[in-house]
């Protein structure tokens, strides 16, 4: 196992390359998902506000 991780002395370079690539790809997906949720929340708030306005003053 440790021999595998050492990669014949090149472990640092290999794992930094693969690790950062994997990290970026995972983080990108999380960021996209999160920003989508934020936009949906904003839009839902807007939609509720519009609905309240169109229903007159019966909302809270």
């Amino acid at each position: 196992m440790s021999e595998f991780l050492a990669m014949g002395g090149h472990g640092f370079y290999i794992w930094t390359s693969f690790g950062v690539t994997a990290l970026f790809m995972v983080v990108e997906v999380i960021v996209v998902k999160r920003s989508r949720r934020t936009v949906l929340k904003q839009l839902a708030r807007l939609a509720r506000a519009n609905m309240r306005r169109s229903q007159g003053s019966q909302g809270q």
Partner: protein
Amino acid sequence: MGFKNTIAWYHFSSPKNFYPLAGRLIPWFWGAAIVLLTVGLYMSFFVAPTDYKQGESYRIIFVHVPAAWMSMFIYLVMAGYAIIGLAWKLRMAEMMASALAPTGAMFTFLALWTGAFWGKPTWGTYWVWDARLTSELILLFLYIGYMSLQSAIDDPRRASRASALLAIVGVINLPIIYWSVKWWNTLHQGASVSPTMAPKMASIMLTTMLIMSVAFWMYTIAVVLMRARRVILERERQTTWVMEMVSGESRAGSGK
């Protein structure tokens, strides 16, 4: 067939129809990406043999080359959408171009990053100002410039038009990157794979690299479609279909 295709193009070039289509396609691209990444990573470390000259460090090629290819392909596709958006004023094409940029920038950075960590054990340095590395760095700046220009202009249509021009002018950098290793005497090696020559590497290494490349493609399509859906929501928020969909979802109580 041509007629039917034209209809389909028209149909899905409208954000309203594109949105649900993208939603249905995304899981398939994720599935393909995950399967291919698993196979590709397994082959990268357990199947591909040690290189007789470079030892193990050459394995960085399995992320470096796919990332570098993606950085250029994505730019080309982005510029293509930018041209379509400019010429036909297609909103969906404009939105696709802007959805592609962050992923393209990410792969450009990763190509540079993995290149640096491959260069250190092979050339003895993380960075040199050779033509290949410098033109790839310029590509990163082009992506960053494209995204900053877009976020600097408030009106989305004007922002698309201005950034599309930048993207199109920047295409000139792509052949420079691609042929830099031929035109100049670079420290970077020549092309490992080219359409005109037999590949200069063992076929198992080539296969692994190609699997990783297709995996990165699938990943890119999946994540770009996800981003495109967000861009649609933002830019089409005044349309009835977005409002109806959002209020329908919030009434159903799911904020997802």
